[in-house]
């Protein structure tokens, strides 16, 4: 009877019905992620990891971890697929930490640009391209802001961000000062999109919190007296930036004029999407410990923040969560863009279905995504059709930001596995356990980008890892179905055709896609869109609804399959 004798008074004092009832919501029925991958031969797995020895990507992220636990150490960094030399093959950009007020690494750290050698390997061309940066990097956003046909790079950093203009000859030039895009502070994700439909790419830059070396807070101590990274709740929120592209290589800060600057947040992820099908791109922003933002574009260069009324600001019980990565896609094929936000452990991620009236319902419970992500902390994520069956699947990159978390919560892990949910057309199936050994590997994943680096129509994945080597995953199953890859080039509309709608039909399969701006976390994706059609032999027709100010609808038939094509706005033909 030792329990009775020694502890009964405590039990009577503190075990109330209320605390139990409050607690159960988070503790029910978590079956756990299987860490046991079925023993299948490598080639059969949907994804397999390409080792650095094979890919040649030997660069490693350095977090710069210190005993003081400066918060930016745990949040980076991002990655990108881009075709910087326009050779039709996806290159890779990786962001690193670097010099700032709390870190002066010796030797200096640098970012990396890897050129695709078209044989499954990559070559480090950072020095030649002059894109090493060197500040405390966070994210990367790729966009052709000047319409010269070559993708430019915007690097967000803690301190001062950088705009690298692509010179078209394999080199870049830092044009930040001229462009007016330094955005001093702690910039996180950035999104290129044309908010005012003038045909030029503008730039939204997330700002996290007010931070400096002197403002860093010490939390803990945890095990062995170690200090942990503090919860962002302890830091002051800051407004994000919106920069209008003037068309002459300069930008104007329209944060205040647009209404966006009125809202201090703690922004991590952002995606430009059109939630009400009005032809104006809206912004969904994941905020950490404060409500998320849904900036509805009301035209005339103005935005209204409607997240609370829309039902995407808070959890179902009205609590602000730790929103990190976000994305938007029409996952249920009803013609309306849905939303996704990843949160921290014990909060569950949210998958928001668009109700067609500027409100959303969280389907995390019914889809099983809530239970599967209950203990996870999500950063990079993307909807894409990995198996080319015509349905948008979901890839999640995870990792807890607190390296002492396991001493605080025995169920939560610091390093977490990747997750893959297959969209069956009716529901999402968690197929992580059968998708390859990479999905059993504990990671401190942060950024995540999609791109078809081997041009086989199967969209591959790049995951950046905090304080570790990036992970390149080759998709083995997408090419088992038929597909068509399209590259859109805007002429009247913005050069990257952000906001374009692609509708297509292949037999009984009718699908709609939107080319969103950004999505994921600190990362940028292959600008091409791969349209999966399953086993159907051909695409009957394809329609492109170009964004304004073009706005035309172009229809194509007699299309090839299993290859990439380029569609230039207004040409009326593909090439």
């Amino acid at each position, binding site marked *: *009877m030792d*329990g*009775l*004798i020694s*502890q*009964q*008074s*405590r*039990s*009577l*004092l503190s075990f109330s*019905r*209320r605390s*139990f*009832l*409050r*607690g*159960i*919501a988070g*503790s*029910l*029925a978590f079956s*756990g992620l299987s860490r046991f991958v079925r023993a299948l031969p490598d080639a059969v797995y949907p994804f397999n990891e390409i080792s650095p020895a094979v890919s040649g990507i030997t660069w490693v992220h350095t977090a710069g971890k210190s005993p003081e636990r400066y918060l930016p150490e745990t949040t980076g960094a991002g990655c990108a697929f881009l075709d910087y030399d326009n050779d039709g093959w996806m290159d890779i950009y990786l962001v690193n930490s670097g010099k700032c007020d709390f870190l002066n690494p010796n030797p200096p750290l640098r970012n990396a640009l890897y050129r695709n050698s078209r044989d499954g390997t990559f070559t480090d061309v950072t020095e030649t391209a002059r894109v090493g940066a060197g500040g405390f990097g966070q994210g990367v956003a790729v966009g052709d802001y000047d319409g010269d046909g070559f993708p430019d790079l915007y690097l967000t950093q803690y301190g001062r961000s950088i705009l690298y203009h692509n010179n078209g000859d394999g080199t870049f030039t830092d044009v930040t000062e001229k462009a007016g895009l330094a955005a001093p502070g702690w910039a996180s994700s950035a999104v290129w999109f044309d908010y005012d439909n003038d045909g030029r790419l503008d730039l939204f830059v997330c700002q996290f919190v007010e931070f400096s070396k002197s403002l860093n807070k*010490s*939390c*803990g101590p945890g095990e062995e007296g170690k200090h*942990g*990274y*503090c*919860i962002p*709740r*302890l830091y002051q*929120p800051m407004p994000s930036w919106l920069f209008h592209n003037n068309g002459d290589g300069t930008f104007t800060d329209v944060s205040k004029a647009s209404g966006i600057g009125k809202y201090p947040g703690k922004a991590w992820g952002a995606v430009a999407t059109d939630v009400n099908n009005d032809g104006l791109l809206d912004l969904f922003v994941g905020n950490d*410990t*404060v*409500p998320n933002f849904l900036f509805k574009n009301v035209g005339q260069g103005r935005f209204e923040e409607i997240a*609370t*009324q829309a039902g995407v600001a*808070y959890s*179902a*019980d*009205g*609590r*602000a969560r730790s929103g990190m990565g976000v994305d938007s896609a029409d996952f249920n094929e009803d013609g309306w863009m849905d939303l996704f936000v990843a949160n*921290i*452990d014990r909060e569950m991620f949210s998958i928001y279905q668009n109700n067609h009236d500027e*409100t959303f*319902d969280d389907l995390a*419970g*019914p889809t099983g995504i809530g*239970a599967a992500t209950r203990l996870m902390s999500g950063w990079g994520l993307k909807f894409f059709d990995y198996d080319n069956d015509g349905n948008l699947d979901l890839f999640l990159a995870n990792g*807890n*930001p*607190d390296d*002492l*978390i396991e001493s*605080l*919560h025995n*169920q*939560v892990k610091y390093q977490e596995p990747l997750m893959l949910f297959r969209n069956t057309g009716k529901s999402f199936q968690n197929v992580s356990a059968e998708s390859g050994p990479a999905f059993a590997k504990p990671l401190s994943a942060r950024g995540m980008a999609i791109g078809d680096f081997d041009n086989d129509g199967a969209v591959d994945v790049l995951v950046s890892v905090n304080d570790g080597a990036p992970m390149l995953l080759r998709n083995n199953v997408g090419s088992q179905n038929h597909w068509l890859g399209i590259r859109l080039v805007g002429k009247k509309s913005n050069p990257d055709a952000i906001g374009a709608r692609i509708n297509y039909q292949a037999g009984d399969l009718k699908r709609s896609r939107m080319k969103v701006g950004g999505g994921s976390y600190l990362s940028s994706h292959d600008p091409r869109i791969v349209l999966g059609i399953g086993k159907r032999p051909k695409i009957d027709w394809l329609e492109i609804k170009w964004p304004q100010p073009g706005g035309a609808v172009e229809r194509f038939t007699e299309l090839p399959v299993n290859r990439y094509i380029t569609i230039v706005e207004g040409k009326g033909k593909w090439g």
Partner: protein
Amino acid sequence: MAPASFFMFKYLPTALISTLLFGLLCKASGQVAKRASISEPSSSVQQGITLAKGGHCKEALPLLKKATLRAGDKDLKRQAGFAGIRCAMTENQPDAAIEFVRFLNREFPHDPEVLYISVHTYSDLSTRASQELAMRAPNSYQAHKLNAESLELQGKWDAAAKEYKLVLEQNPRLPGIHFLLGRLLLSKPDPAPSAAEEAKREFQQELEIDPSNAGAEYVLGELARQQNELPDAIAHFSRATKLDAGFGDAFLGLGAALISTKKFSEAISPLETAVKLEPQNPGAHYNLAIALSRAGRKQEAEREFAVHRQMTQKGGPGQESQQATQPENPN
């Protein structure tokens, strides 16, 4: 438990109270001595305090009890109260101890020392009662139940479950035990995949025995809601609200489930009740705002959104402050 440690547990709390009170008595003894000659009644109280200090509790108690009846010097009363608790506990007079605790709390409300001693006194009395239960009826279902609750609190989940099952073996239709077992299954930190289903069965069995258990109905509602069985959830939450009209969480669960089924107008009434019952719960205001907004009652919705915003931004109950001054770990 070995006899030696049992003995130690039996007397440790009393010894602790004695030590605490001895310090308090010594601190004030100078003041007490100075005031001893001021009046005759005070003199007898002072004598009681002196006797208590010397360990003569039997003799001291009648004198100390007088202090609770007479108006007089506040400090003297305070010292008499502390001495009275010590002596009552030493003499194993729980009623007297409780009287002294009540007296001190009445005369010195919010006094930290009084509150501190009150906690220890009640705790000691609680321990003694549990010891008596263990000694007098070690195999009774009450003893097993209390032991199970204690083991559960210590995180000894399997041992606790075993104790609850022992209770059920003795009294298969004892109300409350299946509920506690279900609660235990859901509270375990690493629940088996089948835990929710097992818990569900326990709550259902509880309701067979005691159809008036609102808590069981509520948890079944939550389980159903999380499994997206919304009609079931609504039925369980509705029954919980009928069984316990003051059960705010059940009204909130009902409203939230109705929102999930897009019955926004129907959701408003239970959510209004939830707000009335739990005005400091931001979740109740938030869900009411959502229901009102989607039912087209935009102005009322805005008011509720504003209340919710105010509560969450200012770090009201149920919501941690964004302006917290004490650093904490991320999770």
